[in-house]
């Protein structure tokens, strides 16, 4: 009985969290010329690895997601390294697109500043009542030859 309980517990612990997939999306806000006028636009796209050429302004999730979800952002010196920092952000309505909620106070440039030029990794994790629902690991890439 005890052995089978330990066996079950060890398996339960080894189960990786599911990917957040498209539940969590990245966005950029920018200017574009439309009909000879410069207008502000935004794009929403899958979160990817971070670099100077693939930076994003923040993250959003659809309004249909649970409003109690919290974003946890963890940074690491390498993909398999220990966490350097970890911070949680609540979601609130996004004025650029009412279909989404945004992690309002999360600024990736600020959050990744310490390691973005050296290379490292970050984890996005969605929490509900302090319990992880899903997570994804991404690389912070250097744009230099090595």
């Amino acid at each position: 009985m005890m052995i089978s309980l330990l066996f079950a517990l060890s398996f339960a612990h080894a189960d990786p969290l599911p990917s957040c997939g498209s539940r969590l999306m990245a966005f950029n806000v920018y200017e574009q010329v439309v009909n000879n006028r410069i207008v502000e636009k935004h794009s929403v796209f899958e979160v990817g690895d971070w670099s100077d050429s693939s930076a994003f302004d923040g993250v959003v999730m659809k309004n249909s997601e649970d409003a109690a979800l919290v974003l946890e952002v963890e940074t690491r010196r390498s993909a398999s390294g220990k966490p350097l920092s970890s911070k949680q952000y609540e979601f609130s309505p996004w004025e650029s697109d009412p279909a989404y909620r945004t992690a309002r106070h999360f600024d990736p440039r600020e959050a990744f500043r310490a390691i973005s030029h050296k290379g490292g990794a970050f984890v996005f994790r969605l929490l509900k009542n302090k319990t992880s629902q899903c997570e994804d690991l991404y690389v912070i890439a250097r744009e230099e030859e090595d």
Partner: protein
Amino acid sequence: MKTFLFLSGPLVLAVLVVAPARSQEIPAAPSREVRAIGRSVNILDEEGDVVCSVRRGTSMKAVGRHVNEEDLQVQVSARNCKTSGPTFIDRTYVRPLNADGSVNGNAVVDTEGLNFRSRPSANSRAHCTLHENQKVQVIDENPPGVRQGAWVKIRLSEPASGCPDEGFVNTSYLTSTDTYQDLPLTGSQIPLPPPRLESGLGCATGECGKENKNIDQLGEVVGPQNLFVDELQKLIKKPSHRPRNLNKARGMVQLPLCSKKGFIGPFNSFHYDPASPGPVGADAYANPLTACAFSSVLHDWDKQKAQLCPAGSDCQIAWGDISHPNKKRFNGHKSHTRGQCIDIRPIMKGGFSNEPLCHRDVYRGGGKRRRLVCSGAKYDRATTQKFVAMLKERGGEVIFNDPSIKASRAGGHDNHIHVCFNNNANSRKACDNFKPTTPLCPVSNL
């Protein structure tokens, strides 16, 4: 008596001040002997313009460290380096000398996971990786058969398991342990001017008439639309030329931007992340020849879009970091120091949006490194191939890791094209032949 005191007072004071100097030794100002390690290393003046170049092995006296913590003030005895003001050298390209005249090769790794290779080439096998701040000893500055200054042979004092004692690393990721703290601070930062913003609004609606005048951010008419190119061409012929209506720093000029937030670049191009690091446009400084050749690409691509791009595609050129007026190694870049190299996103299918191509290796099939998140479906390889061909035709040297595209490869260039316009026959020809026929900023919101 009153008159005597009035006259003699300063005299007495002067004697009191001067007297100790005669009786005491003035301590010598601290200085260090350093040696150039690059094949040809630029000596700069206080504004960052090139005074001369010195060859590898040239010794010089370092008398100060620049406040930018990247340069050393040096005294160079070479005849062609004589100038009235102080001269500087990038400390990356010198090694301090020991008292016996030998080079001090003590260095630390300044990045995490630096590849420790079997040969001096990015294509060689990596034995293992080195950690940030790991101490190494440079034992050969110029290994045979490689571009000088690019790779060095090092020895590890405490190699980790699986790492040999000796191997090769890219020299860009080593920092001398000597920080020259004994040298006095010197030099000054170049004051950062406001971004050069251009307006062509009037011209776009035909209000400028035949002259096709350009209007700057203050509303001042500054000349015909091709003034920018005229000034670049003058600057290329005569580097001391002071260009009108262009910001200049460290021998570079700022590419004009057409919108307050800096996303709209010349000739309908898109400038991504224009305020990183801020202020807007501080990442857009280019060598004049580079600015001219690259602008010719932007202009011609915009004019030929209908023929080059598939129907329904915006096919817009999105460019990012070039160089910074003050920070040589901004955003961690080590090859964006003199304004010759530009990062550009690959061309994307469909309507343009400021959406980056995911960094994960969509080009390598995705299975070799980690799970594939991005499908790469938006990547327009065929049009990117045409764009790369145009860059190369104008003298650009291209790095991009899509194996289907004819370019050089280098780590970190999976999601963007890295192009350098060095001084070569094709880039000069591209600039000489460049006669813009469309406005620099067809639309602006200034």
